């Protein structure tokens, strides 16, 4: 068989100058961008634009209505001199730290226990996770009822004969913030359990068997071999939980209302109260900007490490 194919000679017409994409081709190339455009524009205006706007407001003396008389960083100075803000910020530290820590411990513990070939695992998982489907308002309302000293858990335990049992954190200014921790852990720890369980199921069985053959005891295997493998899970759980903690607003409103007094205020409720009910828009904006700063302080290292690990395969 002979072939008539040849390497085309180098004397052909030069360059593609004459030809350009046709109408259809150009439209096809633009359609995906057109489809994305609304969402991108929305996010540019409503996320980035509004962030900037709020920052601008925080530099003004706005009170009931936004004004644009700039006062520099005076609102930030006021904020940092504001006792209530410091209560809210400290509360966030306490609440956030305990909430994240307890959720991790409880979630990881339940996941490890559930991973022991448990009968009824599906049912248990459903029970642990259902609170995540509820609104924080519902959670707040229910726990407010449970923690009500007169009729709730305290009354129940006293009814069993422990007359001196006291559990009145809800009305104790020093302890109210811990009721937020209880309710929030109740709601979110099941979710952390689900994350850890998915992580555990993703670990190669043979790692486990190899560790057993090396003679490690069960707790040691989990502590030394399995949990280090779950570092990414811990990392993203911490991310999400801290994010929930900083945004926590509805739970406070429903459970403690920020009280007694403002003992259980969080930055989110502080911001809302000053912006919408106390006619302190400038101050409220400044607190919102600081909240954003807090989120970024967590988010940026996370994104950085994500990107870096992805680049390194």
């Amino acid at each position, binding site marked *: 068989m002979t072939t008539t194919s040849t390497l085309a000679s180098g004397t052909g017409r030069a360059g593609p100058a004459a030809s350009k994409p046709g109408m259809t081709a150009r439209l*096809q*190339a633009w*359609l*995906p961008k057109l*489809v*994305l455009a*609304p969402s*991108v524009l*929305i*996010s540019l205006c409503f*996320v980035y634009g*509004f962030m900037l706007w*709020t920052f601008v407001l925080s530099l003004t003396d706005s009170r009931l209505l*936004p004004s644009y008389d700039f006062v520099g960083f005076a609102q930030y100075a006021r904020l940092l001199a504001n006792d209530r803000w410091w209560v809210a910020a400290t509360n966030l530290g306490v609440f956030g730290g305990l909430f994240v820590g307890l959720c991790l411990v409880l979630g990881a513990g339940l996941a490890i226990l*559930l991973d*022991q*070939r448990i009968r009824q695992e599906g049912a248990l998982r*459903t*029970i642990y*996770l*259902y*609170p*995540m*489907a*509820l*609104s924080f*308002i519902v959670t707040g*309302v*229910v*726990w*407010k*009822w449970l923690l009500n000293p007169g*009729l709730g858990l305290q009354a*129940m335990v006293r009814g069993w004969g422990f007359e001196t049992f006291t559990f009145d954190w809800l009305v104790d200014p020093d302890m109210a913030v811990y009721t937020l921790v209880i309710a929030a852990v*109740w709601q979110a720890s*099941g*979710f952390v359990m*689900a*994350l850890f369980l998915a992580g555990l199921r993703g670990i190669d069985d043979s790692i486990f068997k190899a560790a*057993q053959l090396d003679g490690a005891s069960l707790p040691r295997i989990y502590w030394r071999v399995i949990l280090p493998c779950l570092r990414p*899970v811990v990392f*993203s759980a911490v*991310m*999400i939980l801290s994010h929930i903690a*900083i*945004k926590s607003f*509805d739970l406070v*409103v*429903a459970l403690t*209302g920020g009280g007694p007094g403002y003992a259980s205020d969080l930055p989110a409720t502080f911001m*809302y109260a000053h*912006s*919408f009910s106390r006619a302190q*828009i400038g101050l409220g904006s400044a*607190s*919102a900007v600081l*909240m*954003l700063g*807090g*989120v970024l302080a967590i988010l940026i290292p996370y994104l950085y490490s994500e990107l870096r690990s992805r680049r390194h395969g």
Partner: protein
Amino acid sequence: MDNVIRRQTPMARLLRVLVYAALGVAALFYLLPLAVMVLTSFKPLDEITAGTLLTLPENPTLAPWVKAWGEACTGMRCEGMGGYFWNSFAIVIPAVAISTLLGALNGYALTKWRFKGAELLFALMLFGCFIPFQVILLPMAQTLGWLGLSSSRAGLILVHVIFGVAFTTLFFRNFYVSIPDELVSAAKLDGAGFFRIFRRILLPVSTPIIVVSVIWQFTQIWNDFLFGVAFSGHDTQPVTVALNNLVNTSTGVKEYNVDMAAAMIAALPTLVVYVLAGKYFVRGLTAGSVKG
């Protein structure tokens, strides 16, 4: 994992019992609030003050539910939760539908028609998931006013779509990435265009991710309180805001049974979704978090 605990030895058996005990106690911890909520909602008021949290109702009654639905006071008005319950649906359904559709189209355009800068645009949008919404509340309130959407359902729908679309885009993007590009190439060669490929090739295989996205958006928007309380009017409040008002309205005797019934009303739709489609719910949670 096989043979994690060797059942032969008594020690192992004891351990096993302990494991089950710990899991059982945990289950009680998670179930207690729900049990109390349900029990209380069926008790007459005098039984509540006489008994304790967990005593079973002696004369179960639906009266608290009826009152919570139709008569209880939420702030100034005393029309119950019913109207707000439907309000929530009127907000949630369009918001879920629009954000899911937009997310699907975005995910499709981002993965199957990649262009320069697409990843950057996506990262830009994704960031919108993470900001504390306090930072956009004030400008949003003012913008809704300019648009004539203050205190309207349409305004709330708009807000939920704006801040939901990043999540739905994330879901669909991650799903479509796993669908081979060659399918789209084949359809292009067959002569199908952008929308036709979406409708005929990708949409028919997207059912699982549509379910995930719908469930996620449904629970998020149904459970929202911040946007509801900030942007709704008296007539357009979602059910969470109404519940909070109902519980905090202090006129006369505190009716805990009505409070609990109202909480149940607010919780039931998402609980039902969770029980019916728990698998997809979990997938949404993990997709929206591990990846995001």
